[in-house]
């Protein structure tokens, strides 16, 4: 787990301010989707060693759901975006997980909010 998370809205905060839900990559199927798709959405998860996207909520801050891209092995955080931006970006281009919204990365420094 990463010790510090740079919330795109609030800035750098300790992990104690956040809660973790888990893998953010599964997309909720359409209501009419096949049962297998729902089964997969709910139950199938990779046990990733390396970079993965996860849903975190900044419960001790802005209460926004975020998508944290982090390395489960090194704990390095590569990016943090708002979950709404992530979902919108994915709806446009389902294959590519490259959200357009405000991104906070260690390299870019603090995003103004």
């Amino acid at each position, binding site marked *: 787990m*990463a010790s*510090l998370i740079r919330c795109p809205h609030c800035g750098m905060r300790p992990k104690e*301010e956040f809660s973790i839900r888990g893998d953010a990559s599964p997309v*909720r199927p359409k209501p009419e989707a096949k*049962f297998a798709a729902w089964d997969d959405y709910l139950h199938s998860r990779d046990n990733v060693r390396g970079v993965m996207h996860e849903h975190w909520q900044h419960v*001790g801050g*802005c209460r926004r759901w975020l998508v944290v891209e982090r390395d489960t092995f090194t704990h390095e955080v590569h990016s943090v975006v708002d*979950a709404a931006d992530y*979902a919108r970006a994915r709806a446009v281009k389902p294959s590519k997980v490259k959200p357009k919204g405000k991104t906070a990365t260690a390299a870019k420094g603090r995003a103004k909010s």
Partner: protein
Amino acid sequence: MSFSRFDTGGLIDRSERIGFSFDGKQLEGFAGDTLASALLANGVSLMGRSFKYHRPRGLLSGGASEPNALVTLGGGATREPNLRASMMALREGLKAESQNRWPSLGFDVGAVNSALSPFLGAGFYYKTFMWPAALWEKLYEPLIRRAAGLGRASHAPDVQEYEKRWAHCDVLVIGAGPAGLMAALTAARSGARVVLCDESFDFGGRLLKDRVEIGDADGPGFAAGVIAELAANPNVRLLASTTVFGTYDSGVYGAVERRDAAERGPAQRVWRIVAKRCVLAAGAEERPLVFGGNDRPGVMMASSMRGLLNAQAIRPGDHVAVFATGGSGHETARDLLKHGLAVTLVDARADVPAEELAASEGARLLTGYVVADAIGGKAVSAVDVVDRASGKRDKIKVDALAMSGGWNPVVGLACHRGDRPVWDEASGMFLPPAERDGLVAAGSAAGILDLAGCLSSGAAQGARAATDLGFKPRKVDAEAVREACGGSTGFQTLWHVAEARGKAFVDFQNDVTVSDLGLAVREGYGHVELAKRYTTTGMATDQGKLSNFNAIGILAENRGVSPDQVGTTTFRPFYTPVSIGALAGEHRGSHYRPVRRSPLHGWAEKHGAQFIEAGAWMRASHFPRGDETDWKQACDRETLAVRAGVGISDASTLGKIDLSGKDAAKFLDLIYTGKMSTLAVGKARYGLMLREDGLLMDDGTVSRLGESHYLITTTTAAAGEVMAHMEFCAQALWPELDVRLASVTDQWAQITVAGPLSRDVLGRVVADDLSETAVPFLAAREVTLHSGLKARLFRISFSGELAFELAVPARHGEAVADAIVEAGQPFGITPYGLEALNVLRTEKGFITHAEIDGRTTPGDLGLGKMVSARKDDFVGRVMLSREGLQRDDREQLVGLRPVNPAHGILAGGHLLEPDSVPAMANDQGHVTSACWSPHLKSTIALAMLKRGRERHGERLVVWDPLRGIETEVVVCAPVFVEAGRLGEVKIARDLDPVQLAAAVPPDLLAGLVCRVADRVALTQLSAAPVCLVAGPAARNAAIRKMARAGDGVARPVQPGHALAVGNSGEGSEDLVERLGADGAISLCDLSDARVRFQLAGPEAQEIIATQSGIDLSAELAKPGSSAPTLFGHVPVQLTRTGADAFEIMVFSTYAQDLAQSLSRSIRLSG
């Protein structure tokens, strides 16, 4: 001759005498002593008994790595074992005790273990006590535990106070020796924020212990000069007696500050330091030499003896032997000679560099010799030396022995992230791994052993760290350095002395010898991780700081490989032991987690309520009266009163969520199983929420207050989970929907008035018509009280009786509850608590989280009709249709009554058919809720039973093996009483309306410490309206502008959400009007849901750092800036209102708890 003190010299202040005691004996030392040096000055060289063999032990390394001189301080509740006497500044009245000895340190019965030692080698316990296994727990382990060990912990609750605090900096420097001082100085001069930590109570490291010259100053003088400059720099924080114990990701470091000598404040403080760069200047540990009897009191590390001599004027005796493989031995010999002592210098090397020989000139020099054995009892009295060329053995009488086998850089903190140290064959040392996450080593931690090199390495790394961060460090000119042996610091590796005859210790604290390691290799445990566990080397409280590298070297020799191939064990936090109390900080006892208090807490207290913890809340469980002696009597009375007349209870703890936005109705259809969009304005509806897997998450009501304005209630237990779930749905699943959510739980005091007479009572308080036609079942509307106060009235019932829930702004809660009680006096109104509430709902078969247990579906609970078949989509719809969730042999909700009404049933019992064997295969279900029904004069229960709905009337057995109860029961419908069966009650109808008393805002700071003169003050800000301005994120700028119209400061919560605060004395309607309406932006009154405190003064930022990890200088730099954050476990909105002043806005039900936490921090800072 034993240890004593020279009459002159050293850094001690002989004018300041300090009295202390050791094992009950009164002794005296001076200011500048450690406990260890003061003991030596008093001739006490025997300081402890060893872990396994109970061998006499004295001071060895004299620093952080000290394995032997462990003592217990204090007694009773403050008793603290295993403290290193070498790290403890002497202070008046200090009471220390030695450990692991009985009856006394001098005569220890356990020392018989030493005589038995041939049988007690590595793995002895594993091998010997294997059989019979049954004896292990009762006989062997207690005996072994009593015989082996260190100090004993106190069994009394710890009365000391601890604190946790955050610190943010650009550069963290660990260690304030020559390298650390220069790193800190260089970085600080460039303008960087610097934190400098040192384990010792004074700064300087070896500069305080070695005779050196830097420019015009001696070591202590140079250190004092640097510290003075750093102390004067406001960007520098100096932390003495502070051990950095862990390196974590993202540049977070954990440190513990011991404040033994402090008269006030916490006993210990755990720091969480966030640093962009870190210079590890933790120095190096001198490597012990492994020869026979190397653990005897009087044998110590050469650098330690030298330090004690130079700093505390400790005289080791008349004749001292020095056994060395490098320069440190010659330096120690030099200093001993200078004090006029006789020195025999045994150097294992045949060729010694000329500079070293020059330094130790005057000593009796034996080159190419080794010390094979140190001889003596409770102190060393002689050494056996062996000429390696001839093998000739000689005995030399000595008073003490200094040893130096080279140096081990302190690399642990550089390896906590998983990297391993790197073996350097040329120098014979394990060096730190490459830089990771901005942490680099400098000075002797990086393997640079000469003073000049340490100073320049520290300066260079300090400058590099500053440069990386955009600062422009000036070059610090190197000053001329004069040090011992001309800076010759190399050494020859000698892992152990093969000529030894006696026990040669590798790990002193765990009593591991060379032969134990050899045995481990022979028995197949030669891998470093296996050898560690087999022999326990490195597993004591010192974690092998002195011993690990020797153990690796010896394993390498035994296996015939290089130390590189053996490798090291894994380095993990903690670097030194940290007490659990320090890690817990203030979060212990009743502050383990925050306590929420209902706005009606005071009201319930007034009526004699007994409270119980329910989740985060304190809730009234029952209201005992008169001669009632147990809760059940009160509960029965309260239950009967509600069904027969009228009762009043507190429903404020239910989760309340305000939902608005143009897609609110659509959103509700997606998260509830029912069709909520068809709900009429002014009406409420019961709803079920599923998880996506089709199982029930929570139940509650939805009330439509306006066209696109709803109020959602959740159960108390699931309020947090439901809020987070709804936010997830709104933000991550359906971000295209325009919905705004706000928790309004704290805004409203919600009062339930239940029972057939509830309308009559409420009619005296509420001005509106309350008739069945005006307020039918499930009405939800605004009403006005006789006193003019606006309120919300819900015709909702959780008791099955006629009932109303009246919600009023929280500040008026107590006054309104008082008015209702007054109005209810003629009707015998009875306050009822959680216990009666539970009986009332069980009698009606209403569900709670005992039934919504994560395994049940709506159908299981008889609520299948609440799942809409007309909707395309809602959370859980698809998965609910799974075959397994629709099977008709699932467990279904039923009622149970015992055949004998007096027999008990408890929740958790399992249902079996009569005469069937208790087994999983025969399990028919389980009891979820059970209580005594005073109406039926019988125990009743709710249960989940296979095909339960078909089985009403069947006899079963409730099998409760844990409590040894078997009860015969009859299955029935889960409804035990009918409402309104009590008939018409005659009452007086023409009673006067009741007016409200004025609301008195509670003084949350009453009785708390809120001020430390001129440094910090906590005050409660006067009531001002608070309003959440919420709209689409795209309108963020407009929303912040609106919020700013309140008092000039917008308090942003998230994109599209900001809090506005009005002026003191202004009403909330006035603020709403002033902010201005906008169709797309909603305003939610939170005036009663928030309390505002002000924290002001130069110390305010430090107090905030005890609560929150926010970096104030980065995230809240300017007055007027504001952000949500977490204080302890309590969410707040933090606003900087001035250079040293902050507004802390907190949820009102948490306000009392937060006030206590802040007050504690203020008190501890005083």
